[in-house]
């Protein structure tokens, strides 16, 4: 395999391949963060997570169209506004769904899975009716295209760097919200003891609603970021859902750090394998490894040992 390449080539390939893995890692983290909050903190299996992401992507698409039509001069900056709008739209829809659906099912986690699957079917059809069955292309501002020339043979795509930066920012923000803010303490209190939390004056219903909304909102931002590298169609969200759940479960459901570690190991494994075999087989082997490890260590990479 390596015989044909010069040493210098190989070096830069490994750097670029590592970078490809990092982009995949960012994608996984963005997808999984929202889910980790919803699944890890609330125990709700949100099968419609992908559809919340796609909502964010559609919002981004609409924003870019709006800018192109009315404010072409500001087009370069539309993306930042689009991400905020995506967060708000997905978050708001999430809170609506929590109110209408999820709150009736907290005691039946497996049933949330079925109900949200139903929701995902309806959302897909709604997207299809509103935006059409075809994929929509989101035009990127010029500054996001192209790549940075690091050395003569190493090039780094700008949008990849942007996605990674975004991932870091969002992760820090989520960590701050969950671990440092008063609201994060309330969320964790509700997770650990709902009744006690209610008794000490925490509005558990509100905490639930905002937690779900936050998780969905992050999904919306992820969707917005995806328009830079992927496609936006009514069923695009469904493609990600299994990968995302595996990342969260593999990391240990209650642990944000675990989610990040698991996203890192899965993405690096997959991107390394992809270099040696076809994409299909790389995917199969990666998933098999994850499932295999989960069978040996069901609690995932990071898990607290507590008395049940």
């Amino acid at each position, binding site marked *: 395999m390596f015989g044909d390449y010069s040493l210098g080539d190989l070096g830069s390939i490994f750097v670029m391949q590592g*970078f490809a893995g990092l*982009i995949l890692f960012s994608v996984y983290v963005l997808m999984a963060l929202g889910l980790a909050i919803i699944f890890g903190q609330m125990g709700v299996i949100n099968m419609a997570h992908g559809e919340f992401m796609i909502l964010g992507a559609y919002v981004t698409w609409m924003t870019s169209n709006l800018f192109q039509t009315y404010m072409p001069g500001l087009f370069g900056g539309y993306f930042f506004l689009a991400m905020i709008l995506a967060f708000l739209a997905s978050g708001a829809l999430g809170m609506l769904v929590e109110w209408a659906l999820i709150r009736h099912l907290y005691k039946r986690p497996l049933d949330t899975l079925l109900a949200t699957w139903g929701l995902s079917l309806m959302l897909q059809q709604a997207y*299809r009716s509103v935006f059409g*069955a075809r994929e929509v292309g989101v035009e990127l501002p010029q500054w996001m295209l192209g790549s940075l020339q690091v050395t003569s043979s190493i090039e780094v795509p700008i*949008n990849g760097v942007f996605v990674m930066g975004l991932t870091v920012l969002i992760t820090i923000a989520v960590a701050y919200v969950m671990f440092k803010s008063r609201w994060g303490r309330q969320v964790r209190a509700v997770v650990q003891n709902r009744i006690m939390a209610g008794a000490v004056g925490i509005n558990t219903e509100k905490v639930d609603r905002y937690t779900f909304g936050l998780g969905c909102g992050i999904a919306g931002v992820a969707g917005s970021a995806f328009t830079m590298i*992927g496609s936006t169609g009514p069923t695009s969200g469904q*493609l990600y859902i299994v990968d995302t759940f595996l990342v969260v479960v593999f990391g240990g459901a209650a642990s944000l750090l675990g989610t990040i570690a698991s996203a890192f190991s899965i993405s690096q494994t997959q991107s390394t394998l992809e270099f040696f075999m076809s994409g299909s087989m790389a995917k199969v082997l990666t998933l098999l490894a994850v499932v295999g490890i989960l069978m040996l260590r069901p609690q995932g990479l990071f898990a607290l040992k507590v008395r049940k």
Partner: protein
Amino acid sequence: MSDETNKGLLSPLRRKLLMGMAAVPAITMLPRNSFAQTPATSAVNTTGLAVTDTEVTVGILHSATGTMAISETGSIEAEKLAIEQINAAGGVLGRKIKFIQEDGASDWPTFAEKAKKLLVNDKVAAIMGCWTSASRKAVLPVVEQYNGMLYYPTFYEGLEQSKNVIYTGQEATQQILAGLNWIAKEKGAKTFFFIGSDYIWPRTSNKIARKHVENVLKGKVVGEEYYPLGNTQFNSVINKIKLTKPDVIFTDVVGGSNVAFYKQLKAAGIDLAKQPLLTISVTEDEIDGIGGENIAGAYACMKYFQSLDNPNNKAFVPAFKKMWGEKTVIGDVTQAAYLGPWLWKLTVEKAGSFDVDKIAAASPGVEFKGAPEGYVRIHENHHLWSKTRVGRAKLDGQFELIYETADLVEPDPFPKGYQ
């Protein structure tokens, strides 16, 4: 490749004639009553198809829902347009075409089930339908068992031929070989990198392309990669491309994966203006999602582009947009789907009957001079003689015609030396 050519067709006289024909679909024709003799139903329908004195029923069978709806919508639209135009022009043997639309729902067994329903319950005279190879493979045994007639629009992998199917798209050699010849000659290409979605059509197409590159062009395939349908991460393969520095990237990635692939290609600094890329899977439909700026400069090997400059197409494109909206685009398969109802009409009129056996027998040699792609003719093997064209993608999402074969290319579903 094509020994039998149609040089006469290109004579100026014929061209003028064609131009006159092309106006036919667009202009509303005489009222039906003016067709003095409508043949008796008993004479033209001896097998109990859904044919009355005034109507004949055909089926439209595509995915209106599910993942394939994205691609198949254009085909549905084209078929409806063709049917409307045929009806406006007096119908088939004096009968208006009525269609029953069924949803294959992107699910192959559903296609088989619906095909069976159309043939057994609705007794349709013909089915315009299917898109993916998988749906056609599912429907094929059904149309053969119940002796139906299927007009299949998509370019496909070949290796198939049936009395009950007319393939209005290109089989693999028709689509690929001329394009490879052109790019090898034009760009002096010797090394090729193949990337495809992981299923039969890309694999078969790449197999044929590989044989052609190695045996005919005396070039080298430096990489061949497949990704699962729907895959959105192509950074690894892009690195391999950078490493192997092929003269040509040859792709048959389908569906949503395309969007990710071209965006990532561009982001990785591969400039399609300098790095030749030949795709056999991207039409105007796909560019709609990919974004013209991401794919501009790439070459596509098709038989039809929306931008084709011929009188037929100049009538067809506005008619299509008038019916389905100014924003719609027309890709290769959409045009091929448009051929289906017309070819069927012409064949029925040639056979003087709706009977499937008679249509199957009469099909070879049927010509359609009003085809937006130019002139097409049905071959003995039920595929179409058609030209291979290479277009270069522009920023606005349209293709600019760069090259076309001088002659019609003969369909060769079982190519010797390529299996």
